[in-house]
C-alpha cells in the first residue's frame, strides 16, 4: 500500500507536474497491486499535460 502524505503538505506544482501523484494517491486510497506501476504511468501522462500547457508559452 502506498504511503500517503497529508493534503496540506502539497505546495506549488514543481516542473513536470499538473496533478501530483501524492495528491492523487490520497484520492485513490489503498492500491491493491503494485503502486509503482500506477504511479509511473500517472506521472507519464501528467508530464504530457504539463508539456502541452507550457508549449503555448515557449515560442
Amino acid at each position, binding site marked *: 500500500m502506498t504511503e500517503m502524505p497529508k493534503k496540506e503538505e502539497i505546495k*506549488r*506544482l514543481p*516542473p513536470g507536474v*499538473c496533478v501530483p501523484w501524492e495528491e492523487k494517491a490520497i484520492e485513490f486510497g489503498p492500491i491493491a497491486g503494485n503502486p509503482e506501476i500506477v504511479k509511473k504511468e500517472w506521472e507519464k501522462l501528467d508530464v504530457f499535460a504539463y508539456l*502541452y*500547457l*507550457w508549449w503555448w*508559452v*515557449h*515560442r
Partner: protein
Amino acid sequence: MASEKEKVFQEKLTRYTTAMDLGKPDKVPIRLFLSEFMAKYAGFTLQEIYYDMDKNIAAVNKVLADFDLDVIFSAPSLWWASLHDAVGAKYLKFAGRHLEENRQFQYVEGEYMLPEDYDAFTADPTKWILNTYLPRIHEEFADPGSYRANVALIKGAAAFVMANGALQQAGASWAKEYGVPGAISGLVKAPFDTLGDTLRGLKGVMMDLRQRPDKVLAAMEVLVPHNLFYGLATAAGDTLLPTFLPLHRGSFPFLNPKQWDTFYWPTLKRVIEGLWAHGKRTLFYAEGNWTPYLEKIAELPPKSIVFHVDQTDMAKAKEILGGKFCLSGNVPNTLMAYGKPEEVREYCKRLIHEYAADGGFIIDNAGVMQADAKVENVVALIEAAREYGTY
C-alpha cells in the same frame, strides 16, 4: 552489415558532433536552418506546409534528396496551423486563413499576461497557464468548462500528439532514407525571453524593468527550473544533439549592460549550466548582435554551447569564444535573398578560411532562412562549403 545510408548517417553525425566537441572532422559540417525556403523549393505554398503535415514533411524529403546537408533542423513549419485553429489561438496568424497563401506566418505580440498577473504566475505558473493564460489566448477556451472549451482542450492535446508524432516519424525516416541526422533535440528558452516573448511582450517587459523589477526577478527565478525541465523533457533523454535555444530580447541593444547583467544573463546562465550538468549541450542561437556580451558568455563551461553567430562580430566571437565553444554561422540572409552565387561562394570561402581552420566550426546561415532565399545561392553555399571545407 550497415547499409550505405547507415554509413552516410554515421559519417554525418560524427562530422557534426566532432565539430561541436571542438574537433576537426573530415569536412566542415553543413547545418542550414532552411525553414520556409523548403516549401518554395518543393513547390508548395506556405498555406500547404502550415496546414498539411504530409506536405510539410514532403518538402524536407525533396530537399534532402537534392542537397548535401549534414543535419536537418526540422520541417519548414514549426507549428501545425490546424492545431491553432482547433483552440482558436490568437497570437499566430497563418497563410491561407488570415493571410495570403504565401505569406510568412505572423506572431501578434501583446500583453497576454497582465501586470497584475505576476503574483499568481509566480505563485504557481503551471496553474496560471491553464486557468488564466489559455482562456485569454485561445478563443475556444474563453469560457472554461463550457462544451466548446472542453472540446478545444481535447482537440488541442490530440493535435499536439499527432504533430509531434508525425515529426518524430519523419525524423526517423530522414535518417533511414537519406542518412541525415537531426540537428537538435529539444527546445529551451531564456527565462527573460519566456516572459518577454509570449507573456508580457517586449513593451510590457520593458516597462516592468522600470515599474516592477522585483516581480520580474521573482518570476524568472520561478521559471529557471521550469525552463530547464522543458529543455530536458522535450529532448526525450537525448544528449547527443544540442537543445535549441532561440535567443531574442538579450540581443544588443534591447537591454542596457546593467539590465542585461541583472535581468537577462544570470537566469539564462543557470539554465544552460543546468542542462550541461545533465550532459545536454545548448545551441545558443544568438539572433541579432551579441558582441557586447561575449566575455560573459565565455564564463559558461567549455563545450556546453554551440555559439551561433547571426550579426555578432564573428572575429570577436572567434577571439573570445574560439577554442572553448564550437561556432556556427553566418552567411547573411540578405546575401542569400539578394546576392549572386559568386558572392555567396566568396563569403563562404572567406568564412571557412578565417574561422574553420582549427575545427570547431559549423557553416550555416545567419538566421532562419525564409522563402526569399534563392535556390542558386543555397546550391552555391553547399558547393563552396564542400570545396573549401575539407580538412
